[in-house]
């Protein structure tokens, strides 16, 4: 199977065409056009990417296997954790969201749950203290804001 490069080649060809088309749609800059306008460089890039993706479609490399089934699921879990971490960092506060995110990641990578979440909690607490007191940078406290010392 040599599908990877073919499919990515096709996707990148689409990207190149869309990107190049986008470049032709730029409004003319204020003060009239010049030899190299805002669209020149992007058009060059679109041609380069287009040609090399055609090459990939015609002469693809052998494939790397994709992790389907369980490992794929673990990857998706990890991604969900990362997105949730970003989303909840402010509302939940740094310490709690780190406890949950780092803990879950350690656990899914094979650590025992208790150890994993203890690691997450300790790491979150230490980094929070380091940033807020030693480095004078405020990370959000979120739910724990009642602990705030004024």
């Amino acid at each position, binding site marked *: 199977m040599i599908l990877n490069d073919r499919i*990515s080649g096709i996707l990148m060809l689409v990207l190149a065409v869309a990107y190049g088309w986008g470049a032709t749609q730029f409004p003319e800059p204020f003060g009239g056009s010049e030899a190299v306008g805002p669209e020149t460089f992007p058009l060059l890039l679109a041609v380069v990417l287009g040609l090399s993706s055609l090459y990939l479609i015609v002469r693809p490399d052998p494939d790397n296997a994709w992790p389907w089934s369980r490992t794929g699921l673990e990857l998706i879990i990890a991604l969900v954790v990362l997105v949730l971490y970003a989303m909840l960092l402010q509302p939940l506060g740094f310490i709690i969201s780190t406890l949950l995110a780092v803990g879950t990641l350690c656990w899914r990578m094979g650590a025992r749950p208790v150890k994993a979440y203890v690691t997450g909690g300790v790491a979150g607490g230490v980094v929070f203290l380091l940033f807020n007191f030693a480095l004078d940078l405020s990370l959000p406290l979120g739910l724990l804001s009642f602990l705030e010392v004024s």
Partner: protein
Amino acid sequence: METLGFLIDGFGVALAPHNLMFSLLGAFLGTLIGALPGLGPANGVAILIPLAFTLGLAPETAMIMLTAVYAGAMYGGRISSILLNIPGDEPAMMTCLDGYPMAQQGKAAEALAISAVASFMGSLIATIGLILLAPILADFALTFGPAEYFALFMLAFATLGGITGKNPVKTIVAAAIGLMIATVGIDNTGVQRYTFGVLELFEGVDFIIAIVGLFAISELLFFIEEKAGGGKEKMSVNKLKLTWADIRGILPSSMRGGILGFIAGVLPGAGASLGSFIGYTLEKKVVGSKGYFGKGDPRGVAGPEAGNNGASSGALVPMLTLGVPGSGTTAVLLALLISLNITPGPLMFTQNADLVWGVIAALLIGNFLLLVLNIPLVGIFVKLLSVPPMYLLPIVTMVAFVGIYSISNSTFDLYFMVVFGIAGYLFRKLEIPLVPVILGLLLGPEMEKNLRHAMDISDGDWTVLWDSGLAIGLWVFAGLGLILPYIVGPLLLRRMNSAVANQTD
């Protein structure tokens, strides 16, 4: 002699107490980063950049700290080669050949100490080379016009894959994608390009977010996929018994390795892998049948290790003088310079002389610090090496989150970083190299600017790009850089692999 004066000023900068402190911190962190599994030097330096910003460090202090990290990572990489027979990165491959047998014979401490001394020698020689060569090259680079710069950037991309690179077309794809991302934002004629009306994109994509995402987050995903969370067996190191005679024995090897490594580091496209490979082969040739290479000959540790470190200091020459990095880690250092609002290139030697020479002096001092750190503290590094990745990588991920968040306190940047992480994972799966993407991001604006200037001067005549002899030369080398890997690459890789295979049988 002018150089000497600058260097003395540089020492004045580097020896200021707080710079020295950060240099020491950087050296320690760097060795740690080099030693830990799953944290390459480029990755480690990238994660530390946002932290350098949040600490509010002065430009020269930030640069000194991260150069120390860079130098330290090269020292650290050898620890896992010697103790575990697992090279941290490609250049460390040759250190395994004699380092691991030494460890098996119960001489791990000696192997580590010898490699530390050899690393020191290699870096020292290369730093002296840097001091001699860099000002000359910077002067020469001042004669470059916009057309030559444009050709030089092409050369940088073409040789980035390196002699041992796999598929040059994928290097081109990667570079084009990086350059495309760099065009996002308001360009200098005031036109919005590819912003889709999203406010956060008006100023373009912050390359620090891209770098941390591409390296750190994709590394986490790779470890999860390979289920490599368990870590390795515990190791112990014997008590060090090293005599002066042992050190004298490896000095010639270290010198030869260091000089060769420096040359390989300066040349575009050769890099540290080639440096350590040539270092090893040369040692075998020179010592001949008197050696017992592959069975734990100390000279087989010293040669490639000096070559490897020499090459990594040599790689700083094109980065500092031309603003064109030759490796992933120097690209990350370039990212730091650009985000400190320093325009890299030949003018840096005149406009930011204290910074450049401060960094060079710091490199010298850093080497002494590293040698001092590495021999007595090796036990600590070895202990840390046995921290299983299942704890380590989530914590590294958290540090990446904290770093990015602290730049702008925005959640948008964090999402962006995760997206870059996914892209990095997919690219690595497709064997599209990540370094050209980053180089494209970094050099994109400069490249377009030079193209514009060249065209404005020539009134829209494209032939100006290959009008001067110098420009033609650069284009020819760029072409060779793309074609040579097809011819020489497989040959060289086969020889490196067969050398490794012969030894391990």
